């Protein structure tokens, strides 16, 4: 074993010498050192998996519609014509507009509707019918809710730039939306679903604009298509692309492995097309804070010898074929060609239960 390690060490030193002396010429060609072309190619790509928390806003301004509210329902309908004594509007205008029941827009406390027991200061009086032309009285709804995104992306690195694409799946937990005006008269909008899914397919470009020790700061822009869960009626919705801009802060543990924290903001909107011709535009921006891992598949494999923990990348001679192969002795998350102390700044004897002892042994 020790003999073997010495041999590899000598080879390693030779490699370094060759690199220094044979400048401008690939040592892999000169000494016929094998490296998998696929590994070399795939090494240029980074695979990133992140998850975290999203803060999602649902906001819309009603315009071009009548908003109607009675003690049991809320709905909207086009204000193209003056409403008659009975109306049929649409509920669930956030995601899946449904025809409401035919409704009288009479004041429920006028003759000939029923008397009200305990009439003075009866709470029901604050919950009367309401009909608002949103072109005259601006009205909208806004709510904020949380979600859990999971993103997987792949990008190609060259110089300080990166280009790639990816996929995000997000579970959103939707809360009720509060009115932006007429508070106290208009009740909160209650979505007909508690949670939904969002999917995003996107292209990605990025630029590493700052480095600090092992940290990279990368500005990333993602543009792509997004899909909404089955709670959203796709036939009644038109939507464009979404845009996401964020700063990826990456701690490089090694050239293959990094830990990421990424805040980003996401802009998207969709428009509900009501059957009566009215449209309602919904803005649904989000703020994400995600953490995750990013790896590059190493261009060389681990040494086949389990006891090989050589700090530097080195040459290994395949005993069967006699070919030279470049291998690494360190796992993915360790620096492959570390400087002194980079991989083992603290000895094991000083860790865990002995971490506070001056002289553990």
């Amino acid at each position: 074993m020790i003999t073997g390690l010495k041999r590899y060490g000598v080879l390693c030193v030779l490699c370094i010498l060759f690199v220094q002396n044979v400048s401008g010429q690939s040592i892999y060609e000169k000494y016929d050192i094998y490296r998998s072309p696929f590994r070399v190619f795939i090494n240029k790509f980074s695979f990133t998996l992140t998850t975290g928390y999203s803060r999602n806003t649902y906001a819309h301004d009603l315009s071009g519609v009548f908003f109607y509210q009675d003690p049991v329902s809320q709905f909207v309908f086009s204000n193209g014509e003056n409403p008659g004594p009975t109306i049929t509007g649409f509920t669930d205008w956030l995601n899946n507009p449904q025809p409401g029941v035919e409704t009288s827009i009479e004041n429920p406390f006028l003759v000939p509707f029923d008397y009200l027991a305990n009439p003075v200061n009866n709470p029901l009086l604050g919950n009367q019918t309401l009909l608002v032309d949103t072109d005259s009285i601006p009205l909208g709804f806004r709510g904020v809710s949380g979600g859990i995104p999971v993103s997987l992306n792949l990008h190609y690195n060259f110089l300080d730039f990166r280009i790639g694409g990816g996929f995000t799946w997000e579970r959103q937990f939707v809360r009720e939306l509060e009115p932006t005006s007429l508070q106290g008269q208009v009740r909160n909008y209650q979505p007909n679903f508690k949670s939904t899914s969002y999917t995003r397919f996107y292209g990605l470009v990025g630029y590493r604009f700052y480095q600090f020790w092992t940290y990279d700061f990368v500005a990333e822009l993602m543009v792509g298509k997004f899909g909404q869960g089955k709670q959203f009626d796709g036939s009644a919705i038109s939507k464009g692309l979404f845009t996401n801009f964020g700063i990826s802060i990456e701690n490089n543990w090694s050239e293959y492995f990094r830990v990421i924290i990424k805040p980003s903001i996401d802009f998207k909107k969709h428009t509900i097309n009501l059957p009566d011709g009215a449209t309602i535009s919904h803005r649904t921006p989000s703020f994400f804070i995600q953490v995750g891992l990013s790896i590059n598949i190493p261009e060389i494999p681990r040494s086949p010898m389990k006891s090989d923990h050589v700090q530097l990348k080195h040459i290994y001679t395949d005993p069967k074929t006699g070919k030279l192969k470049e291998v690494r002795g360190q796992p993915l998350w360790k620096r492959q060609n570390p400087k002194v102390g980079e991989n083992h700044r603290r000895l094991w004897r000083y860790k865990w239960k002995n971490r506070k002892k001056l002289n553990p042994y």
Partner: protein
Amino acid sequence: MYKCCSLLLLLLLIGSCSKDDPAPVTQADTEIRSYIDSLGISAVRDESGIYYYAIDSNPGGVPVSPGTVVSFYYRLSDLNGGTLASVQRSDGDSLLAKQGASAIYPVGLDIGLSFMRSGETFGIILPPSLGYEQLTSGAIDPDLVTLLEVEVVGVVSEAEVFNQELTEMSDYVSDQNLNDLVANPVDPVEFTTSGVAYKRKREGSGLSPINGDSIVLNYDASFISGGSFDSRSDFTFVWGADIPRPFIPGLEFGVSRMLTGENALIIIPSSQGYRESAQVIPASIIGDLIDDSIIPDYVSTIPPYRTLIFDVTRVD
């Protein structure tokens, strides 16, 4: 010792949370007490915060109790003696109100009446919180401490009121010769057990309404004592949908037996109509209270305990 102290503390806490706590002393109390002292009278402060004192007592009178119908006159003034409104004997009929049913505004008057008997006159001083504090129109200063001098002239039960209404309805039928089928075809007046009287004036065809039918009515509505209060043409609604709310029971009962094209008089005692409605002092602020969502809209049209007549044609 420690346990005893804990128990005592707990009892004190529970006691402090009691809902029977008297209203805290306010600046209005200071003003009211100063006024009472200036008069040299003794007044009782109720736990709600109102003050009352007897001007004329009548220990043998019928006590006002929750659910009874009170006939009264009043004079509303500020503590400087300026009259804001009044209804006195010289103005005509007394006002009616059901005590203890949240059907009287201001709320302090409802409370004050509960201490009175028929034949008595009380002074009831209302702090703003039980007076006109809720009124946003400014018709009466919301911070004003008000004095109501109330004379209760009668206390009866609702059953007695309804019996009087039935008598009134019978008199009306006789006076109008509604059972004279030559002068007033088609059917004689039918008095139902609920008290509603139904007089078919023109026969219809088809079926009586069933749930989900779209019904169209023309009607004129008036008080049995005279005076129209509502009229509608092509009033459309879905039978049984109860949207936005059900109708008054008397009208619903009457329409339930109407065929298409039928015309009928439906005479509705208050028990099947708007019952106690609400009594507002003074009447001039009814519109403001409706705007403030303090009372229902129909209060502006229907005073308490009124018998109604609907002349209805089903036209759908």
